[in-house]
């Protein structure tokens, strides 16, 4: 087999050294009954060339997507990924390495983790960030569990305007942990209705921009919570222009890091962003890297406060997390470093301007109006005059892709279509979309 270095001679020599006469004897400890029950997969050995062909054929079954113009959003966005990113993440010293338990051999990984933690704090305005969780949804669930550990109350208030996939995962984790989820409706403007907040919460979860693309007003929210923690779910690209949640006193900030240089990849692997305040440090789940010095006083990095984690605390760990999403975190780090602060601002501006251009052109059409008045970033919802599924189907014929309106319908916004506009959408593409809408 191609990935095995031993030759037949090697195997014979090793068997002799062990004192066995056949390779089968190596498995004498497995009960014969179990071995007898075994059934193979009926899978032949195949060459690299054949397997490449098979996978390429499968990829081509997705081909309609490649030549299409995407306005799909919902937490996963079609952003331009600088070429530098995949070149760095393809370096095998990074991707074939393990978790940096031996820091002297892992300064590459650890330094990039430290950079990542710093970048997330800069974006979110928070004091400490971990080295990532699996994805935004599991990061949110972990945040809610953390808030319960700190505050002690078994109830969380969650905005109805969370992305459905965040809410589903939250519901599952809360069911298991015995936490009650209380849904908070949204106002006509599309923002979270905080007028009648329930009591006895360990946290309030708000997403901004939310599932309608609307930017929430966070000012004054923290002050209205008794001892409950304010958990804000956000889009990292939007933080190139929008005020960071940390500024408004958020206790935990969560995000999906996919927009930061990670391909859509049919939903994973993604990147869960998690940041909090220093005073909650010891309750924070996930991996952390800290700066330190070596025996000669040279600055280096190492994993820190591992006593929170499962391999030390076991059943009293803050979480059971063992992996982070390190290679994706590396991609995000290189992505942000290749943009720089100026580039990120420029990027966010392109998203903002193009989205608003499209919104204005669409709402100039008879019967089309913005579903919500509140400000938005690069995603917005539009009330449409005819069946949204019909509009969507017609646009799909022209290879223009929109999110399924049933997602918004399920959130109480029927006859509505959502558009996500990134820097990749050219004026021509935007104008083309409007032209088509004009005649549907």
């Amino acid at each position, binding site marked *: 087999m191609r990935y095995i270095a031993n030759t037949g001679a090697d195997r014979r020599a090793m068997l002799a050294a062990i004192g066995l006469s056949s390779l089968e004897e190596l498995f004498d400890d497995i009960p014969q009954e179990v071995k007898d029950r075994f059934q193979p997969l009926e899978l032949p050995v195949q060459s690299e060339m054949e397997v490449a062909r098979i996978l390429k054929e499968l990829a081509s079954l997705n081909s309609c997507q490649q030549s299409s113009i995407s306005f799909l959003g919902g937490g996963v966005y079609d952003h331009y990924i600088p070429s530098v990113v995949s070149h760095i993440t393809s370096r095998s010293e990074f991707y074939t390495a393990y978790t940096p338990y031996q820091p002297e051999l892992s300064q590459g990984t650890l330094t990039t983790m430290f950079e990542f933690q710093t970048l997330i704090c800069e974006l979110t305005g928070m004091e400490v960030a971990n080295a990532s969780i699996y994805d935004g949804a599991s990061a949110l669930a972990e945040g809610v569990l953390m808030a319960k550990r700190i505050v002690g109350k078994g109830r969380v208030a969650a905005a109805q305007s969370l992305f459905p996939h965040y809410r589903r995962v939250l519901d599952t984790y809360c069911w298991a942990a015995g936490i009650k989820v209380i849904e908070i409706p949204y106002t006509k403007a599309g923002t979270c209705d905080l007028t009648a907040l329930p009591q006895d919460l360990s946290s309030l979860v708000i997403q901004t921009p939310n599932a309608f693309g609307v930017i929430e007003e966070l000012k004054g929210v923290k002050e209205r919570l008794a001892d409950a923690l304010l958990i804000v779910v956000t889009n990292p690209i939007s933080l190139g222009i929008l005020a960071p949640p940390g500024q408004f006193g958020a206790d935990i900030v969560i995000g999906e890091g996919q927009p930061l240089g990670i391909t859509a990849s049919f939903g994973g692997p993604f990147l869960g962003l998690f940041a909090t305040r220093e005073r909650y440090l*010891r309750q924070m789940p996930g991996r952390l890297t800290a700066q330190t010095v070596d025996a000669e006083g040279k600055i280096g990095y190492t994993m820190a*406060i*591992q*006593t929170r984690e499962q391999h*030390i*605390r076991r059943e*009293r760990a803050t979480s059971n997390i063992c992996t982070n999403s390190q290679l994706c975190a590396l991609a995000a780090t290189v992505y942000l470093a290749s943009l720089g602060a100026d580039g990120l601002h420029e990027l966010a501006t392109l998203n903002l301007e193009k989205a608003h251009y499209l919104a204005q052109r669409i709402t100039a059409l008879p019967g089309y109006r913005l579903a919500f008045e509140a400000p938005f970033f690069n995603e917005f919802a539009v009330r449409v005059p005819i069946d949204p599924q019909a509009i969507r189907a017609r646009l799909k014929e022209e290879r223009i892709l929109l999110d399924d309106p049933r997602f918004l319908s399920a959130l109480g916004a029927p006859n509505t279509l959502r558009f996500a506009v990134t820097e990749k959408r050219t004026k021509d593409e935007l104008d083309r979309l409007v032209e088509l809408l004009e005649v549907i």
Partner: protein
Amino acid sequence: MTHPTQFRYTKEHEWVDLEGNHAKVGITEHAQDKLGDIVFVELPAVGTAVKKGENLATVESVKAVGDIYAPMSGAVVEVNTQLESSPETINQDPYGAGWLVILEVSDPSEADSLLDASGYEQYLNEG
């Protein structure tokens, strides 16, 4: 290492210095040595009531967590706040400046069932 003879000891490597109905609690030389460099101490709030054997405090080193159990029942009247900024004091002076908590005990005679210095010494040699 000699263990202060006026203290009592538990098999979980805590020491108790009982004066009247005030019991000062800390961890032994053996415990701090096993844990290694102590980096963080979690102390109970003043006023907390504990029963003998319940978790009283937690001491963390880089690689391990030491749970400290209440050697006697009582209420926490004072904690060694200096350990917040200098947890290494426990390593340097486990029987003196590295004390953790002072309890006001409900039943001073609970100390009688604890090991004395030579009993603890013996226990260490066995293990």
